[in-house]
């Protein structure tokens, strides 16, 4: 199997790629990168004409909910990986809050087998920190690590017991895998629906203060300095959290973090008409928080963009605000939303966005990536100029706050191990 990607502009800051070159792929690997490779190759080879297009390292999502096993009505590994491919993601990490929970080897095996037989992008399961996400007993983390998880998370829940969190951090040091923490003091957010502020007050919805996130981020970083280990802070949403993370990084602690496209671009005013498509946890915050998140993404305090793709069916979301579940989908729109809202508005460099979507998340989970000889041929080809309206989704669910939006910049090809898995 050979493939030539001709004449695209390569963008991969981690490998100092920023010019028009060809990529020659053989047996799933990048065999060579250079100018006018086509001339030296034999005729008749499969080729993609990427003239005028951007070729980037394949996107890696550290935070996807695939819902299988358990909620196949919301998403499956088959549909979720197709949605990922459409969004340019060549690898996704799936969160363990399925039914059953990914807290033992057999569920990891099931997901990997399903991904192999029905998926079209690479799927890396994340294991639970505690059994059944119950926050009381550690899951068999070594078994999970042996089965191939790339990190641990009780996502959706916080490990509220600080003593247990300490043990998890200590224990995880045996595997050098990150604890991907959902930071939320559940006592402070009880019954909460949206960010606490003007809009929660005006709408009479129970608020979730950003301090609920700040407290847990501070606690986990504090524990990290006690125990060592690695923490990856999921879906950072509050400016207060950013400040703490920036300081922790300056202090040399092993902490990384992510922010989502929705937290980077939407504030709580979105909910002024009680539109449940913007109901998400952590909640959409204030304009001040968005500014802090963008600044932190630009200066590298926020390492990566992750989607927190959380599919829910229409009938679940078409409910009274308090009864609708938290979560928005994001795989299919992540790049275009951030390209339109951040890059085009000159709040973030294009290469910065590419890094935050591709090589940086790959390095957090220790997956090989980047445009260089010998790397897996996981690539995303982008048309910067393509404009489109967000309408149809490949995902089984359509709970997107970006539905109906006009966006610019679109993924045209997604290539996994040298194979085209999505083509516009």
């Amino acid at each position, binding site marked *: 199997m050979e493939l030539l990607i001709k004449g695209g502009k390569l963008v991969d800051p981690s490998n100092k790629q920023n010019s028009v070159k060809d990529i020659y792929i053989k047996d799933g690997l990048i065999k060579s990168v250079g100018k006018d490779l086509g001339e030296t190759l034999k005729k008749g080879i499969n080729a993609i004409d990427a003239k005028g297009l951007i070729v980037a390292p394949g996107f890696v999502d550290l935070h996807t909910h695939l819902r299988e096993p358990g909620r196949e009505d919301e998403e499956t590994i088959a549909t979720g990986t197709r949605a990922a491919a459409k969004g340019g993601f060549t690898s996704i990490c799936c969160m363990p809050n399925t039914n059953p929970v990914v807290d033992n080897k057999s569920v990891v095996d099931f997901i990997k087998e399903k991904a192999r037989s029905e998926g079209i992008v690479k799927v890396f399961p994340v294991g639970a920190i505690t059994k059944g996400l119950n926050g009381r007993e550690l899951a068999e983390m070594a078994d999970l690590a042996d089965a191939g998880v790339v990190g641990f998370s009780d996502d959706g829940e916080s490990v509220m017991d600080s003593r247990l969190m300490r043990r998890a951090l200590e224990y995880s040091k045996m595997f050098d895998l990150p604890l991907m923490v959902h930071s939320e003091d559940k006592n402070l957010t009880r019954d909460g629906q949206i960010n606490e502020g003007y809009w929660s007050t005006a709408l009479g919805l129970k608020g979730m203060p950003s301090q609920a996130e700040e407290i847990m981020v501070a606690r986990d970083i504090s524990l990290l300095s006690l125990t060592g280990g690695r923490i990856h802070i999921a879906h950072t949403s509050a400016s207060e959290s950013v400040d703490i993370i920036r300081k922790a990084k300056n202090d040399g602690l092993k902490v990384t973090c992510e922010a989502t496209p929705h937290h980077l671009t939407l504030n709580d005013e979105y909910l002024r008409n009680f539109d449940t498509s913007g109901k998400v946890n952590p909640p959409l915050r204030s304009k001040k928080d968005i500014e802090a998140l963008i600044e932190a993404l630009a200066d590298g305090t926020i390492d990566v963009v992750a989607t927190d793709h959380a599919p829910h069916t229409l009938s679940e979301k078409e*409910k009274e605000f308090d009864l609708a579940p938290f979560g928005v989908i994001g795989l299919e729109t992540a790049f275009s939303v951030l390209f339109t809202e951040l890059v085009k508005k000159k709040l973030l460099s294009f290469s910065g966005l590419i890094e935050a979507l591709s090589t940086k998340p790959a390095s957090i989970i220790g997956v090989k990536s980047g445009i260089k000889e010998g790397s897996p041929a996981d690539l995303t080809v982008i048309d910067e100029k393509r404009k489109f309206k967000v309408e149809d989704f490949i995902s089984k669910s359509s709970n997107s706050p970006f539905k109906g939006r006009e966006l610019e910049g679109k993924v045209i090809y997604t290539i996994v191990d040298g194979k085209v898995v999505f083509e516009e």
Partner: protein
Amino acid sequence: MIDRMSLSVTNLLSIKDLTNDDINLVLDTAKYFEEISKRAIKKVPTLRGKTIVNLFLEPSTRTRISFELAAKRLSADVVNISSDSSAIKKGESLKDTAKTLTAMGIDIIVMRHSFAGSSELLAKWTDARIINAGDGAHEHPTQALLDLYTVREKLKKIENLHIGIVGDVAHSRVARSNIFAFKKMGAKISVIAPPTLVPPEFESLGVNIRYNFDEVIPEIDVIYLLRLQLERQTESFFPSIGEYARLFCLNKERLKMAKENVVIMHPGPINRDIEISGDITEMPESIITQQVASGIAVRMAVLYLLAGGGLVSGAVD
């Protein structure tokens, strides 16, 4: 004089949506309708042939009866639905309920619901006109309109009055609607409660937050007491009912500190001796029963205006 015969909105979901003209139109229209309730035959044919559903998914006595009487005095056909006697108890979603009622050709749905924003949702799913009769801690617009009406009748103005709203502001839809409504009409508002029941964000709604009732009392023209939901006490918003009452109950001693022509209001139902001591409710300063009476006239006005309006004088005769 009313120079405009229709509202700028098709549904009454929130005071926030109304213009000052809308509010004045409702109050002026209510004035015409108030007279009907004082007649021996309390009925006009204005809404004959219109069907109104009272969809009360949270228990309510006074609001539901008030709407029912308002509709009946306008000769509309009224159907009452409550959550325990409907398909909702069998798990029917609000959307399906809305679709069902729409198919039956209902003209107006009056909804009470325990979750904020429910009437906005309902409006998306039906062509019927929607009146929000209270949605969670969000709004209770007809309560605010009847409160405006009652104050205007009693004090002959609203502008520049100082309204003191006392009690569980944080969880109160009545407080929110009244804040929006009285602000729009030019009143000054102070909210008076322990800090646990009035978070600082309320300042962004344009009100003063005060913690000491005794200090504010001499400054205010209208003392508006909110109902304390007694189950709050278990959530530690305050240590005990007794302590709450000591600090925030309107009793005779506190009333002595008030302005001479102060008026006392309460949306009901009252927790006697917690928000207000029993001996005060009957005093001349209290306009609590006038609120109830105004409620019917104001709701008649709202039903009438949402059903299409027209010349009020013609409608009443």
